[in-house]
């Protein structure tokens, strides 16, 4: 199952989804969440492969997709990033770090009033392009990117 293609959340209550999944025997007993982790996308070793694995094979740059990240990170272990999509009907956002061993960092589906807006913190091994991809309900993909410099740590603080 592909997270960016998924629309299971639309209009369905969580308990409903869970109940349906349980009834259908889809859940292993230990699984709390009625979801599958997109192994292929998270284990892809470069951004194009990871983007393909989430279904975003072709994307268009968009100024309505805002990626806010520092020009230079104080510490690569904790890089604060937020992504806001002003593109109408955005249903999902995914974040990639080109130079990380596994570029796909996270993917979010929004439903039931959640705005296409997420703040998160990334681990970056080195200076890299950070990339956001947004998906709209009609299946289009848009991107925005920014380079974040990561410098070697020092003493202090």
């Amino acid at each position, binding site marked *: 199952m592909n*997270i960016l293609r*998924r629309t299971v*959340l639309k209009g*369905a*209550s*969580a*308990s409903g*989804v869970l109940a349906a999944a349980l009834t259908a025997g889809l859940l292993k007993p*230990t*699984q*709390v*969440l009625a*979801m599958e*982790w*997109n192994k292929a996308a*998270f284990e892809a070793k470069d951004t194009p492969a990871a983007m393909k694995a989430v279904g975003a094979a072709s994307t268009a740059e968009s100024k309505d997709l805002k990626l806010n990240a520092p020009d230079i990170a104080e510490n690569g*272990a*904790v*890089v604060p990033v*937020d992504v806001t999509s002003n593109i109408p009907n955005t249903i999902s956002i995914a974040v990639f*770090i080109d130079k*990380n*061993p*596994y570029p*796909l*960092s*996270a*993917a*979010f*589906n*929004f*439903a*039931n*009033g*959640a*705005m296409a*807006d*997420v*703040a*998160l*913190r*990334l*681990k*970056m091994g080195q200076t890299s392009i950070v990339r956001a991809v947004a998906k709209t309900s009609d299946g289009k993909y848009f991107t925005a990117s920014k380079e974040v410099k990561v410098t070697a740590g020092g003493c202090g603080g």
Partner: protein
Amino acid sequence: MGSPMKVRAQMKGDFADIKILMSHPMETGQRKDPKTNQTIPAVFIQQFTVEVGGKVVVQSETGTSISTNPVFGFKVKGAKAGDKVVVKWQDNKGDSRTDEATVA
């Protein structure tokens, strides 16, 4: 069972501002123990959901490049003060955690 999260939710105009702090090592599987030189196995949150007022509003999948002790922020329209916010996560080792807050 995982350590408690800290969930805060506050109305800001027409949306609820939701902040989530999770307590998790988020081991990448790329680090080596400096003493034994053995690779430390990956342990990381793979999925989490956010529910407001009984409805799932955010469903997320995460990899190893999320910072240790993850912090997430979301905005949810249509929520109101008093709504219950429930956050659930599950990691690759099957550990999980559920915590709640009320929209203020």
